[in-house]
C-alpha cells in the first residue's frame, strides 16, 4: 500500500492522506450484530415470509394452504399484471422526464444570490411539508370536472382530465411533480452551491455566456446529483401508492392500477393474500433490479469525482 503511493507526486499524496487516513484495524464482527439482527427480523424475514405466502392460498381467516406454483402461473397469464407494469413504467418515465428539468432549473436558480430568492425558495418548498394524503385530496377537489379548475378552464384541462387513461396518468405526474420537485431541487441547490466559482470566472473570461456556462459547467458538475435524484425517483416511483389510492383509486377502471395498488387491492380488498404476495415478490425483484441497473450503468458505484482535474 505504501509502496504504491510513494511514486505519486507529493501534492496528491498529501491530499489523499488528509481525505482518507488508513485504518490499520478493522472493527470486530460483534459491532454488526445489532444491525444485522434488526435487518433479519424486520427486512429479511418478512421478505422470505412473503415469498412463502406466494406459494399458498391464504384468505386471512383460515391457515394458509400450500398450492405450489398456482399463484405464479396465474400471475404470468394475468393481463392486469402486465397493464400494471406498463402503467408503473409510464408513470416512472413521466415523473423523471418532467421532474428532473424543473428541479435542476429551480435548484440552480435557488443556489444563486438573487433578490427575494430566500423568500421564494421557502414558498417553493411548501408542498413538501404537506402529507401526500392532504396533497391528493386537495388536488382531487381542484381537478373535479364539475366544481374544480376544469369547469373554469376547459380549454386547458379538457372537460374531464381524470376520465381517460392518458389524462389520469398526466394528473398523477402533475401532482407528484408538484409535491416532490421541492425535494429534488433542494438536492440540486446544495450541489450547485458546491461548484467552484473559479470555473465560472474562467469561463466568463473566455467569453462564455450564461447558457453556455450552464450547459458546459453546471450540468456536468451536477452529474452525481442527477443520478442520486433519479434513483430516488425510480425507487419512490415503483413503490408510490398513496397518491394513486387517493387521487384516482386506480381508475378509470383499472387504467392507473400500478403494481403496488394492485397488490393492495388483491390483499386487502379481495382477501387473496397468496396472490398479493406473488405481486409483492415481483415488485421487490423489479425495484432491486432497477436500482442495481441504474447504479451500474451510471458508474455511480465507482464514486468517480466530478472534481477531477481541479
Amino acid at each position: 500500500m505504501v509502496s504504491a503511493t510513494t511514486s505519486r507526486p507529493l501534492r496528491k499524496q498529501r491530499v489523499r492522506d488528509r481525505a482518507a487516513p488508513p485504518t490499520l484495524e478493522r472493527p470486530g464482527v460483534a459491532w454488526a450484530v445489532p444491525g444485522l439482527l434488526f435487518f433479519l427480523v424486520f427486512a429479511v424475514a418478512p421478505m422470505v415470509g412473503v415469498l412463502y405466502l406466494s406459494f399458498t392460498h391464504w384468505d386471512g381467516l383460515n391457515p394458509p394452504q400450500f398450492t405450489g406454483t398456482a399463484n405464479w402461473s396465474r400471475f404470468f397469464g394475468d393481463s392486469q399484471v402486465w397493464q400494471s407494469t406498463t402503467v408503473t413504467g409510464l408513470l416512472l418515465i413521466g415523473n423523471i422526464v418532467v421532474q428532473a428539468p424543473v428541479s435542476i432549473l429551480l435548484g440552480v436558480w435557488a443556489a444563486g444570490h438573487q433578490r427575494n430568492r430566500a423568500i421564494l425558495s421557502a414558498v417553493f418548498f411548501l408542498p413538501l411539508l404537506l402529507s401526500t394524503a392532504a396533497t391528493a385530496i386537495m388536488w382531487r377537489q381542484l381537478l373535479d370536472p364539475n366544481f374544480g379548475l376544469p369547469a373554469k378552464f376547459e380549454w386547458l384541462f379538457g372537460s374531464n382530465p381524470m376520465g381517460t387513461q392518458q389524462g389520469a396518468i398526466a394528473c398523477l405526474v402533475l401532482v407528484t411533480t408538484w409535491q416532490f420537485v421541492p425535494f429534488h431541487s433542494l438536492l440540486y441547490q446544495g450541489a450547485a452551491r458546491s461548484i467552484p466559482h473559479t470555473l465560472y470566472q474562467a469561463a466568463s473570461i473566455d467569453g462564455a455566456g450564461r447558457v453556455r456556462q450552464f450547459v458546459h459547467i453546471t450540468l456536468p458538475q451536477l452529474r452525481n446529483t442527477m443520478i442520486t435524484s433519479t434513483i430516488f425517483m425510480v425507487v419512490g416511483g415503483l413503490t408510490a401508492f398513496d397518491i394513486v389510492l387517493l387521487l384516482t383509486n386506480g381508475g378509470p377502471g383499472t387504467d392507473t392500477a400500478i403494481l403496488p395498488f394492485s397488490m393492495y387491492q388483491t390483499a386487502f380488498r379481495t382477501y387473496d393474500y397468496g396472490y398479493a404476495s406473488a405481486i409483492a415478490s415481483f415488485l421487490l425483484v423489479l425495484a432491486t433490479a432497477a436500482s442495481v441497473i441504474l447504479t451500474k450503468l451510471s458508474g455511480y458505484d465507482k464514486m468517480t469525482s466530478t472534481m477531477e482535474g481541479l
Partner: protein
Amino acid sequence: MNSVSRRWFLTATAATTLSVTVAGCGSSGSSTSSPTGNVDFWTLQDPTNSVQKAAVDTFNSAGKGKVSMTVIATDGYKDKLRTAMGSAKMPGVFFSWGGGSLNDYVTAGKLVTLDTALESHFLPSALAAGKVGGKLVGIPCRGTQPVFLFYNKKLFADAGVQPPTTYAELQNLVKVFKGKGITPFALAGNASSSWTELMWVEYLVDRLAGPKLFDKIQGGDWSQWKDPAILKTAQMIKELVDGGAFGKKFGSVNYGAGGTSTLLNKGKAAMVLMGSWEYATQLAEAPDFAKNGLGYVAFPSVEGGKGDAGNVVGNPTNYLSVTTSAAKQTATEFLKTTYSDSYVQGLVEKGEVPVTSNAAQYLTKAADPAYAKFQYDLVQKAPSFTQSWDQALGLTLGTPLLTEIQKLFNGQSSPEQFVSAVLAIKK
C-alpha cells in the same frame, strides 16, 4: 469465515421466518370466559353511535354482564374486522353489512347461530341478509336503506314533467333534460364510487328477470351471469351512457357532498339513484333543498320485464353478529336491546327507519314523518328486498365485479365483454 457467516445468516433467517409464521397461524384459540363475562362490541362510527352507547349503558347497569363498545371509523372497518377475526383478538359482538362477509366467517367457524325466536321482532325482508345457509347469524341493528330515485322538484316543475314510473318515461326524461343542458342523472363514476353504478345494474336486472336470478348467483351458481337479462341490462346501460343520461364527466365525479349531491341541489342534475341516506346528506349540505326541493319516487317498472315493480334493492339494514369468543349469555341478552322501545325510538330520532315490527308507531316522531313513512311502506310492501350485490357476494367477488361494472360504464368494455369478464371472475 465468509461462507460460515453466510450459512449462519440463512439459518437465522429461516428460523425467524418459521417462528413468525407459526405465531401467525397458532393464534385462533378462543378465550374461554364465564357465561356472564365481558363482551367486546365493535361498531361503526356513524350518527347512531349515541343510540348504541345508550343501549350499552342501560344493559351494563342491569347487571347481566358487561359490554364494552369500540367505535371504529368507516374507512378500513372491514379490513380491521377481517384481521381481528383471523386472530385471538376477535370481538365478541360486531357490526356488519351482512351477506357474503358473514358467509366467510361462518365457513371459518367463527360465528354463533342465533336463537330463531329473535326473528319475530323484525320485518322478514330485512332478515334475509343476516342468514347464512338458512341459519340466523346476524340480527338488524340499524334502519333500512333502500335505494330509490331522488329528483330536483324545481327542475321538474320548470320542465313541466313528472318523475318516471316506467322505463320509457325515464328514457323520455333523459331527452328532455339533455335538451335543456341539464345532466339527467347525477352519477358518481370515479373508481372508489362504482357502487353507485352497481345500483343501476341491480335494479335493471331485478326489473327484467326478477330477484331469483341474483339469488341463484349468490347461492353459488356463477354461470347464471349467462342469463340473457344480464346482457340486456349491460346493453341498456350502454344505451343510457351513450344517450348522455349521466352526462360526459361522470367518470371522475365523487359520491355525496361536493359530488352527486351537490349536482342535484345546485340544479346541474335532475335526478340521482341513491340509497335512503341521500336525504341526510342533503340535509347536512343544503337544508332548504332537502326540505322543499327534494323529491323521491320508487325505481320505475321496465316494460316486458318479469320483475315486480315493487321490488327493492339496497341495504336491508346492518347487522350484529356474535362470535365464538363471546360470553354467550351476555351477548345473547345484549342483542335483545336492539328491538327495545328506547333503541327503536332513538333510531327514529336520528332519521333512521328501523326494521323492527314495532317501528311503525314511532315513525310520526321522525324528523320528516312523510319521508320515514315512504321508506317504511316501500320496504314493508316490497315482495323482495335484494341486498346490494357487493355486500351480498362478499369482497372477494364483489370487488372485481365493481371494477367490471365501472369498465362497462366507462365504455372500456362492451356489453358482451362485460358478461364474459364477470363470468371469468369465479373459476
